[in-house]
């Protein structure tokens, strides 16, 4: 297990905790190494998301604000999406990819979570390039530009878009 991997893992755990803390308004999150012999500390019957496959794996532990650490499966749809987005944003912060494509990732979020994710993404946008498909107005408002797609008689084309009001 290389020292480089461990160094990166440390930075990803840090970024994950910080990002989730901000997106969730005070929650906690971590990645925990797990191995085949020892399952999750939280469940004796781990679902597929924590079934280690050969050697050390990483388990996701999330504690939304005001709640106790909960098994991922019991979290709500929006809470799971928020945790996933935080982990994604953490990987992007530690090792930016050339660009990042996000297709409707905020579908399960309520308005306040959409706004927090959009403003966080806006900050990430100053260091990297993001293409996000969205139906959410708040996400559109946080973007640097809009690319409009329309279809007529089964053929797609581009249109320029201005945000209303």
């Amino acid at each position, binding site marked *: 297990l290389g020292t480089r991997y461990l160094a990166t893992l440390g930075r990803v755990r840090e970024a994950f905790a910080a990002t989730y803390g901000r997106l969730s308004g005070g929650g906690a999150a971590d990645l925990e190494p797990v191995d085949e012999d020892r399952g999750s500390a939280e469940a004796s019957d781990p679902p597929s998301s924590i079934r280690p496959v050969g050697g050390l794996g990483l388990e996701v532990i999330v504690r939304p604000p005001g709640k106790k650490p909960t098994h991922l499966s019991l979290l709500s749809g929006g809470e799971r999406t928020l945790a996933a987005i935080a982990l*994604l944003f953490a990987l992007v912060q530690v090792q930016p990819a*050339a660009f*990042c494509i996000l297709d409707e990732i905020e579908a399960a979020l309520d308005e306040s979570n959409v706004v927090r994710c959009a403003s966080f993404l806006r900050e990430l946008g100053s260091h990297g390039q993001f293409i*996000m*498909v*969205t139906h959410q107005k708040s*996400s559109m408002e946080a973007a640097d530009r809009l690319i409009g797609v329309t279809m007529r008689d089964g*053929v797609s084309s581009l249109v320029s878009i201005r945000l209303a009001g």
Partner: protein
Amino acid sequence: MLLKRLEIMGFKSFADKVVIEFGAGVSAVVGPNGSGKSNLTEAVRWVLGEGSVRSLRGQRMEDVIFGGSPTRRPLPLAEVSITFDNSDGTLPLAFAEVTVTRRVDRSGGSEYCINRAEARLRDVHELLAGTGLSGNAYAIVGQGQVEEILAARPAERRAMVEEAS
């Protein structure tokens, strides 16, 4: 490295050639259901060498070629070109601009070009190595896929962190 431009011709619902200029920061792709937004993101995946037809929602690779509409005949081939600004030398090529092109027709397999010179798929993969865009990149999240990062087995998540190292 910056994503400059995407040119789509005959790919899925883009029967007419479409040229999309991307800037820095966050670009929001917007439009009604079924207009072609996810098709656009799949064009990026496809030109970068996506091999899985199922991950492009098709059953045969020829499903990505415009199949016609009540007012348009099907097209014989699909072609997508993606152009990068390489002035920072991220890509191992001595060009300030690098264009990758992929073309497929109804009879055969895919053909690739890098800066208009014929190339093989493995050349494209080698070119993109280290950009976070090849293989199981966390940087491209398809519609309905955001929670995949949580469903991943611990060992797969470790691989993502290793990829980020």
